[in-house]
């Protein structure tokens, strides 16, 4: 999929194993052992309490006491169990710390951009940038940093926004219109602008961005809370199972030590997902940041996985955005090459994409390039009144322009447009194209067919979205006929023609009324209400301040197709959670078979110290009861760091439909989750058993 993606500026990927990240993560893993941190994660909190108890037991044993809860286990066993239980908690912390570390590294780069600047107010006074409040008006000259987020109210300038977007080419910012927003910390490279500040102190875009990527403002998302409750319920069930095992064992003549019971509990409760849950969430945000999208809340990332309807602006998203010449339609009696030549000449000075495309198309007719200077031509630029442009060469008036404007011109020159002209103009209009009539003095030579060109690969993209269960709606200001034509060609599911901000808002409301979640992109101020109404509203960074505040995500690349990637990131995040939960629960089967035969090996044995009937359940053939329990706990612990890369990267999402996806993930993480620990525990036991010699 990414191969067809229009160039997305990827932030430099931060490697998982960058030195300073690793160092900081390691330190944090231990700092996070603080029970006040752990209490927020019920599963890991239980593990920590268990580690404490086993450590106390070991200390008692080390000083010659009896292990808590009976049993005759040696001190080294209690020691090993307690070490690995502590490591389980540390590994869980490490997962979170790694995820935060990557975000923090990005935040640090951003922070370096944030320089203390002094703002020059319009009245000539100065003010520290940090003290600017909403409504202040500042003047920024070339070479200066813009002191805060705001809207350009006077002037036009080029601004270097590479600090925020990573894109080095300067962009134009001007008052009025949809490119009026400027971001604090970016640099003006030409001309002077007057900016009205739109932020309160400490609330700048850059500061919010830093807080976001650092995870400082992270709140648990609704789905994360629900999953946490499920994990807590499972933990509670297994606590009952383990707590009642003591009396059951005693009834059967087997006393089980506290250490072994805690080991069994930790093995059974869903520690894997409990350890990785918050890392998965942080990593989801991080993956968006690396795609240059800022999600203003975790809730929005989660919602993006749920999107049912995607509103896409036609221009710039589905079509290239510029109408390009695709055909010359000459009038009867006019050779096509003559039309092509006149069209080319009339466009020579026309630097618009349409004009250039006519020159390019004319080349295919073998028309050689002309040079304005050598032709002594006089350029007649396009104006809103004349609605045409062209050149005057050797007393000839060469013009191209809107059909009715050219007809009027020709009539005024005393000519009469051929009767076929109107039919051609209508046909092109109906097909969704734009006709440009071409005339020489009083003669209409023909029509240039300007086509709205659909981006390559859009049809495949929409097919994929359909397979993901997402309906696409094209939004355009075109009339119904034109819109229908483009919708059909591009393969989009539906369209909204003659769109106004009000109609767009109404469409979103209507879809939401039917229970669908809607995503859209927007940049203009008049998009703001719709952006705010949409469940996922992605504002373009080039857009106005109003749009940026209304949306819950900002795309720094201002690439409208980015929505599709955002949806994928949301889905990946949810799949990763589900997959690791399934894996974690499925692991229990093997752990039961590792620990219970070990616990009950002597139960109902014919002779004291001999093997009882339940030892046949040691189907893995683990060395000794103690090595079996230690191996199960080691497996339980090291599976966490082994899965950190997966949880940070996310389980891959494939648009193959929900049923196939579920089958696939059930097979990998469900069945795999049952089998993997059998192999893992056996391998660890081979090592542990041989090292300890039983």
């Amino acid at each position, binding site marked *: 999929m990414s191969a067809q993606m229009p160039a997305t500026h990827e932030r430099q990927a931060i490697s998982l194993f960058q030195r300073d990240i690793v160092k900081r993560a390691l330190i944090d893993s231990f700092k996070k052992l603080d029970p006040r941190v752990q209490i927020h994660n019920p599963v890991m909190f239980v593990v920590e309490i268990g580690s404490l108890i086993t450590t106390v037991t070991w200390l008692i044993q080390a000083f010659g006491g009896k292990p808590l809860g009976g049993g005759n286990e040696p001190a080294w066993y209690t020691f090993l169990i307690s070490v690995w239980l502590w490591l389980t908690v540390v590994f869980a912390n490490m997962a979170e710390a790694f995820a935060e570390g990557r975000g923090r590294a990005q935040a640090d780069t951003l922070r370096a951009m944030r320089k203390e600047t002094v703002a020059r107010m319009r009245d000539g006074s100065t003010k520290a940038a940090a003290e600017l409040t909403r409504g202040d008006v500042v003047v920024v000259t070339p070479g200066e940093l813009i002191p805060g987020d705001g809207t350009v109210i006077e002037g036009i300038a080029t601004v270097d926004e590479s600090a925020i977007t990573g894109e080095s080419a300067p962009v134009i910012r001007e008052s009025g219109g949809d490119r009026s927003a400027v971001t604090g910390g970016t640099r003006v490279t030409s001309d002077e602008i007057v900016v009205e500040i739109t932020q309160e102190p400490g609330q700048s875009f850059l500061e919010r961005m830093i807080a976001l990527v650092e995870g400082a403002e992270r709140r648990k998302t*609704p*789905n994360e809370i*629900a*999953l946490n*409750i*499920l994990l*807590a*319920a*499972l933990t*509670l*069930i297994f606590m*009952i*199972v383990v*707590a*009642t*095992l*003591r009396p*059951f*064992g*005693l*009834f*059967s003549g087997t006393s089980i030590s506290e250490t072994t019971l805690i080991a069994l509990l930790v093995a059974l409760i869903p520690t894997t997902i409990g350890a990785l849950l918050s890392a998965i969430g942080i990593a989801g945000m991080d993956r968006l940041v690396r795609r240059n999208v800022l999600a203003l809340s975790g809730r929005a990332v*989660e919602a993006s*996985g*749920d999107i*049912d309807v995607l509103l896409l602006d036609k221009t710039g998203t589905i079509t290239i955005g510029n109408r390009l010449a695709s055909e010359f339609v000459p009038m009867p009696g006019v050779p096509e090459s003559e039309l092509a030549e006149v069209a080319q000449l009339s466009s020579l000075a026309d630097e618009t994409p349409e004009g250039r495309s006519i020159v390019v198309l004319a080349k295919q007719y073998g028309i050689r390039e002309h040079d304005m200077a050598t032709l002594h031509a006089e350029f007649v630029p396009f104006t809103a009144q004349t609605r045409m442009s062209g050149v005057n060469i050797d007393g000839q008036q060469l013009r191209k322009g809107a059909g009715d404007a050219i007809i009027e011109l020709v009539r005024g020159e005393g000519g009469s447009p051929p009767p076929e002209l109107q039919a051609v103009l209508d046909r092109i209009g109906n097909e969704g194209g734009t006709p440009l009539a071409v005339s020489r003095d009083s003669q209409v030579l023909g029509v240039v067919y300007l086509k709205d060109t659909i981006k390559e690969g859009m049809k495949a993209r929409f097919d994929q979205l*359909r397979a*993901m*269960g*997402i*309906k696409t709606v094209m939004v355009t200001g075109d009339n119904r006929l034109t819109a229908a034509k483009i919708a059909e060609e591009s393969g989009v599911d539906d369209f909204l023609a003659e769109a106004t901000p009000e109609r767009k808002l109404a469409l979103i409301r209507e879809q939401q009324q039917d*229970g669908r*979640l809607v995503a859209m992109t927007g940049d203009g101020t008049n998009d703001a209400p719709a952006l705010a109404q949409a469940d996922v509203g992605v504002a373009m960074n080039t857009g106005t301040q109003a749009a940026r505040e209304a949306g819950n995500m900002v795309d720094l690349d201002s690439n409208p197709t980015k929505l599709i990637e955002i949806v994928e990131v949301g*889905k*990946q995040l*949810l*799949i990763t959670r*589900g997959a690791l*939960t*399934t894996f974690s*629960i499925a692991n*229990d*089967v093997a752990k*039961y078979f590792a620990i219970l035969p070990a616990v*009950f090996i002597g139960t109902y044995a014919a002779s004291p110290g001999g093997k*009882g*009937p*339940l030892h*046949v*359940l040691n189907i893995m053939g683990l060395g000794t009861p103690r090595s079996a329990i230690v191996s199960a706990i080691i497996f339980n612990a090291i599976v966490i760091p082994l899965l950190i890369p997966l949880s940070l990267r996310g389980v891959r999402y494939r648009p193959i*439909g*929900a*049923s196939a*996806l*579920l*089958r696939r*993930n*059930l097979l990998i*993480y*469900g069945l795999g989750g049952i089998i993997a620990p059998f192999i893992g525990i056996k391998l660890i036991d081979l090592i542990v058993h041989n090292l300890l010699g039983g």
Partner: protein
Amino acid sequence: MTFAGWLTIFLFAAILTALAMPLGSYMAKVYTGRRVFLSPIFSGPERFLYVILRVDPKREQDWKSYAKSLLIFSLAGWLLLYVILRTQNAFFVPHGLNPLGYHSAPWNVTFNTTSSFLTNTNWQYYGGETTMSYLSQMIGLTVQNWLSGGVGIVVAVALIRGIIGRSGKSLGNFWQDLVRTVLYVLTPISVIGALVLVSQGVIQNFTTYLTAHTVTGLTQSIAMGPVASQEVIKMLNTNGGGFFNVNSAHPFENPTAFTNLFEMLLVLIIPAALVFTYGRMTGNRRQGYAIYSAMMLMFLGAAIVAYIAEAHGSPAQHAAGLHTHVISGSTGGNMEGKEQRFGIAGSALFDVVTTVTSCGAVNSAIESFTGIGGAVPMANLSASEVIFGGVGTGLYSMLLYVLLAVFIGGLMVGRTPEWLGKKLEAREIKLAGLGILITPLAALFCTAMATASHAGRASISELGKGPQGFSETFYAYLSQANNNGSAFAGYTGFIQPNAGNVGSHGVTFADLLGGFDMLFARYAPILFALAVAGALAGKRVTPAGLGTMRTDNPTFVVLLIGVIILVGALTFFPALLLGPVVQGLTGHLY
């Protein structure tokens, strides 16, 4: 193993499915207030009952109000039954209804029995024919057999209404649902069922016990009574409390191989039909088919294992040289504790039928099953009554598991989980999680109390120390927590030296612990199920698309079975090891 044996099992499954489908559609009509072919007969009595009960059936109830009505109704029923049982030989009881002049059982046994029949458990510490008067059996126990089943069914219906509810909080009206259940569902099946049973030789009379002189010159007292009317509802509402102590092994309760099959159908017909009712009410019958498939697969798995184990006999039986293979005139296998007229398949299947549901009736001695054969009913109970389960109970417990399966699986398709278009959020997960937790909590906690305490061990018979004693205890509290009522024998709560309760006393510890086990494991999940219904009722529905996880296809069936086994049944794995598994691995003959 014989062809006839396998045929019994698979034919039974086919007949059950064929009968349950139309009944399911019929019940969907009843609970959505549409006219059915029995409306002309019952609409009069229905209106009459509303007048007597002073209820307005049009008044819709939210989950709290629905639960309140249910609890008040249950409390009243409990008190009434307790009084009836404690006054069975009071002066105002006509002699004809207590011809043998039986005294009442002691308070503690009565507490257990009352709780037992109220919760559809029918755990019996007493022997019916030596303890209960005809009045107690008919007005006391049989009435609760009807009503406790009815309560289970209406909870399932209310939960379905919550799941499909499009707006508002209403779950229907408790009284209306209960009246309709009794009139339109239970009455017609019971009348036909009782007549069928009588035609096969099940007795229905009020005569005093007969005295027979045996060939060896001894006299034998043959118990009589209104059996057929109680038998049919005992099976139909998955109650399981026998008129006689030996339950469905008694020839007056279950005389022929045909009645054996018929009674098994009675047990499963409503739990099976309700699944189809669910499909109908959701507007997508495939939803029902998927859950039915999951239940049927687990059911057949249990039946096949039990049949093979019993037909094969235990390793110790082989070692002892007992011939367990098929020879002429004998089906071979482990016939210990089984009736000749039912045979191995008829006994093994009956056992599975009554332990996957909350019925608990028995036609053979479960404690005499082989190790593996005996582990099957325990494993069935460990699945917390979701393989068809009790009437209503089975469906609402299963739906809580469906909710969990949807939550876990739903994430794996890359959306926040949604069930029939409704988003599953923290509240539903919390309630369903707690609802599922109750049965393991009650069963394990009570078993722990009973095995750890001196008072608890008093109930275990002298012979049953070691794994047998553990199995008896565990089975007793697991059965009561599942509101099942079947027993692994041996575990007592009632010492009764003479018939008629003369000189009897109860074992207070076992009676009370069991009573609370039953009440807690019955009403807590009901409240959680109703609360889930309330939480789901008002949710907005998202239309399904290609990206939505389907809950009506084979993949989901696999997921659901996986969740039931991993989250539910596995919690009992350690306890199962110390009971039947140890026994199966040691030298016990059976």
